[in-house]
């Protein structure tokens, strides 16, 4: 029985003598991690939805009536060089008429060909980094300063509301993450404590014979690691099974990639090791 085999024997003894505690710990942690996984997926899906919605956001700058058509290209060029703008499209009166026709299904300007009252405008598309209320307000202010621009419009309030919702989701996710982390640690620590309590006498004897703290603690660190790591993996397996049973047509669900899941399980295992140490710490004093 080498030191290593002793460590694994002790681990086996612990699991063999307290299978209910070990299974209980595994299931409760798996449920906690499953909850976390579900929120992770929900947050990623919401983020993708948000990005998609935001990417469709455009700003429209209306050209003043006094601007003659020959002044349009240099004006378009000047606007295109504004920071954060990725593309700009000029909408002439004729194009505006076509758009209106498409929207309404009928041409309201039949007979008014020479006196098209629709305004000319620029449809402005932004870089993804600039798609936020602060940058867009700044661009809006800049464009309003042009004498050739009569008015600038975009969905300002909608953008603010979307951003506020995103912040709330992020904060809730963070709070939930911390809550689950704490619950997982406390649950693991208590399980390890339960398992070690019945073995206090044995620990004391082993210490009296000169066994080091790490030597005694190691089986419990591994146990914590195993239970926590397996629970995290079980949570993802449940998600994987569920994802094959459910198919949504309206929303594309965003699942983490395999590397992220591996990192998550490894982090959960590390968390378990810390819990294992905390669980046995009192006994090693």
């Amino acid at each position, binding site marked *: 029985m080498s030191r290593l085999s002793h460590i694994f*024997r002790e681990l086996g003894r612990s699991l063999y003598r307290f299978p209910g505690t070990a299974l209980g710990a595994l299931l409760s942690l798996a449920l906690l991690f499953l909850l976390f996984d579900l929120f992770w997926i929900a947050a990623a899906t919401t983020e993708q939805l948000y990005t998609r919605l935001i990417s469709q956001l455009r700003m429209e700058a209306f050209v003043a009536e006094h601007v003659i058509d020959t002044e349009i290209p240099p004006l378009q060029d000047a606007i295109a060089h504004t920071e954060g703008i990725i593309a700009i499209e000029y909408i002439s009166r004729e194009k505006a008429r076509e758009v209106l026709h498409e929207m309404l299904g009928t041409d309201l300007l039949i007979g008014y060909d020479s006196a098209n009252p629709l305004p000319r405008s620029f449809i402005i598309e932004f870089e993804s980094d600039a798609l936020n209320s602060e940058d867009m307000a700044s661009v809006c202010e800049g464009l309003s300063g042009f004498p050739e621009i009569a008015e600038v419009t975009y969905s300002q309030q909608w953008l603010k509301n979307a951003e506020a919702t995103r912040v709330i989701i992020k904060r809730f996710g963070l709070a939930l993450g911390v809550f689950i982390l704490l619950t997982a640690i406390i649950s693991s620590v208590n399980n390890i404590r339960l398992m070690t309590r019945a073995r206090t*006498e*044995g620990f004391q004897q082993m210490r*009296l*014979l*000169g*066994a080091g703290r790490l030597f005694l603690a190691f089986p419990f660190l591994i146990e914590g690691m195993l239970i926590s790591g397996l629970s995290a993996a079980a949570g993802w397996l449940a998600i994987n099974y569920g994802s094959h049973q459910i198919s949504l047509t309206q929303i594309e669900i965003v699942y983490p990639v395999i590397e992220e899941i591996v990192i998550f399980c490894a982090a959960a295992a590390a968390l378990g090791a810390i819990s294992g140490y905390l669980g046995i710490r009192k006994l090693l004093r």
Partner: protein
Amino acid sequence: MADEIVADIQNVYLGAARNEGIFRNLNLTLKAGHTAIVTGGPGSGKTSLTALLTGVGFADEGLVEVFGESLRPRRIWAINRVRRMIGGVGGIFGLVPSMTVAENIAFPLVITGLSKRRRQAKLLKMLTEFSLLKKAGDYPRTLTRVEHTLVQFARASIGDQPLLIIDEPSAGLDQATTARIFEFLIKASLSGRALLLLCSDAPAHDLPNSDIYHISNGTLE
């Protein structure tokens, strides 16, 4: 090895009050190959003496040195080193309930990291010497009082620990086993190991190079 100081206790005070403590100016020097027999009634401090020598308890005042290491709180590494060189039987020493007889006996060698082959050889020798071969796979809860003591003796000897602390060596043992135990102790003493025997009364068997002390009122006489 001979005359090498194994344990040295100098001017030790232990307990809440200097005049009413467990030990008051306790002095004891134990050399290799020598035996100190400490007698005393219940509550006289025999177990506290074991606790001092194993780093379980610490002196309030004075010096406790075992194998040249000063035993003080927080010196975990030194205490563990010292504990690995002590073989203990009875008193605060017991068996690990979750380990088999063989595992209990071999445990001191596991801690020191001895190779499996040498460990197995030593284990077999101990199991044979203490007639425990048939009990090797049993757990302590199934053992008789005598077997329990024999397992402890086997564990205290497997690593040739230079210091043996035996609390009530013949407690609960029949005459034949007691004689066998003392035979073992004589051999251990002659091989250069230091022995500390803690008993209620002086033992009926003689041990080589032994001094008898009586512990009372917190001092050794």
